[in-house]
């Protein structure tokens, strides 16, 4: 272990961590909306909506995230009407392409998590709500949603950690996130072990924070 080497490169890694945090939190934020949207489609009685949601989640969970990023970043630019539309302002930037890919990916996984959370709500609770004369909107926001949030917290915590690790793929489309900078330092100095220890520790600290945040929320939304 060479402490001088570490302290020389540590500020750069720390700066890159900012981009990693940014990518993770933006993708998770958008991903929640996508996830809830497709979870609602999934539990709807309309067959077409069900199939759209089913195949969306099937395709995004059955293929590697790397393929998804590459299709969006390298592939979509080939389509003429996309290049001529206003979408091109976003899709020519690696940053927004990465966020789009991460959002769609985490949206697919979270839609499954939210769906199973909605499905496990006790039928008796819903009947009680009906018996009390609550309307549909009230039942959804005051009863279904809080229970579903509580139910999905542990699985969603795992998904957050997977997404944090997933943002490392941003480095494959030229973005300099924590992994991207780590790779750059490794390939210019040939000191993989030291860089791995430092960058890995930063990732582990962030994982630890997410883990504890979820634990705190589980307590807050708990039944006790």
């Amino acid at each position: 272990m060479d402490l001088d080497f570490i302290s020389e490169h540590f500020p750069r890694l720390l700066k890159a961590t900012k981009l990693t945090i940014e990518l993770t939190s933006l993708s998770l934020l958008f991903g929640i909306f996508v996830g809830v949207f497709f979870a609602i489609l999934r539990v709807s009685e309309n067959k077409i909506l069900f199939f759209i949601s089913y195949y969306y989640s099937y395709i995004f969970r059955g293929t590697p995230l790397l393929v998804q990023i590459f299709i969006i970043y390298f592939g979509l630019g080939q389509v003429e009407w996309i290049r001529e539309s206003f979408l091109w302002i976003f899709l020519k930037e690696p940053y927004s392409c990465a966020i789009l890919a991460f959002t769609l990916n985490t949206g697919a996984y979270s839609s499954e998590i939210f769906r199973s959370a909605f499905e496990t709500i006790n039928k008796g609770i819903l009947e009680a709500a009906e018996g009390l004369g609550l309307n549909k909107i009230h039942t959804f926001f005051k009863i279904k949603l809080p229970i579903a949030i509580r139910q999905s917290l542990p699985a969603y915590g795992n998904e957050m950690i997977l997404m944090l690790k997933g943002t490392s793929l941003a480095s494959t489309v030229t973005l300099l996130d924590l992994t991207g900078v780590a790779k750059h330092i490794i390939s210019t100095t040939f000191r993989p072990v030291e860089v791995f220890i430092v960058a890995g520790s930063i990732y582990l600290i962030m994982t630890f924070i997410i883990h504890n945040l979820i634990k705190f929320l589980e307590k807050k939304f708990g039944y006790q």
Partner: protein
Amino acid sequence: MGLLAFGDTGWGDELFFATLMTIAVAGAAIFIGFFLAAIFASFKLSKIKILNWIGSFYTTVFRGVPELLVIYLFFFGGSGAVMYVAKIFGYDGYIEVNAFITGAFSIGIISGAYSTEVFRGAVQSINKGQFEASEVLGFKKKIYYYKVIIPQMLRLALPNISNVWQITLKDTSLISVTGLVEIMRMSYIAAGSTRDPLFFYSFAAVLYLFLTFLSMKLFNKLEQHYSKGY
């Protein structure tokens, strides 16, 4: 579809062999993972505190650090580590570790961290009464493990092993950064030389979907087989 022709005119045969390479790396990785998981799961289940810590350290690090970072560690550090060991045994030359081995090991170590948790959970969920019963019946320890514990463990662990396999299969796409010609790398080459990335990356997605679909079917069959008695 001319792009997918077999032979010199299309990329069909190249992509076919790349798919076999993906399966081979994923297979090698999951077996390396099982081997590590057998060791580290027993560490985690042991009564010795230090072994517990080693087991937890392994699963925490390799499930918490991005796969890509682990691959870079082995890709850039692999040759150095092997040469260091070789030097101890008196060999001084340059050794290059091949991309397949680098890939299989880095993905295998990650896969092993997930398998460790699966194995540990499966062993812990077997009823203690089973052990007492086999003792009363006079089974030897070896028979007890092979005929009582492992068949039950497999049944309980199969759905989770199926998950780990899917994760491992998808993780192999990241090995493409080391230059190993599997599905992603071959699609990258094809996309570059035909300037048709949309087609080739979408086709890569189809290949992965096909592989994950096929493995799901296979695991369902296995699960049926192992739950016959229930």
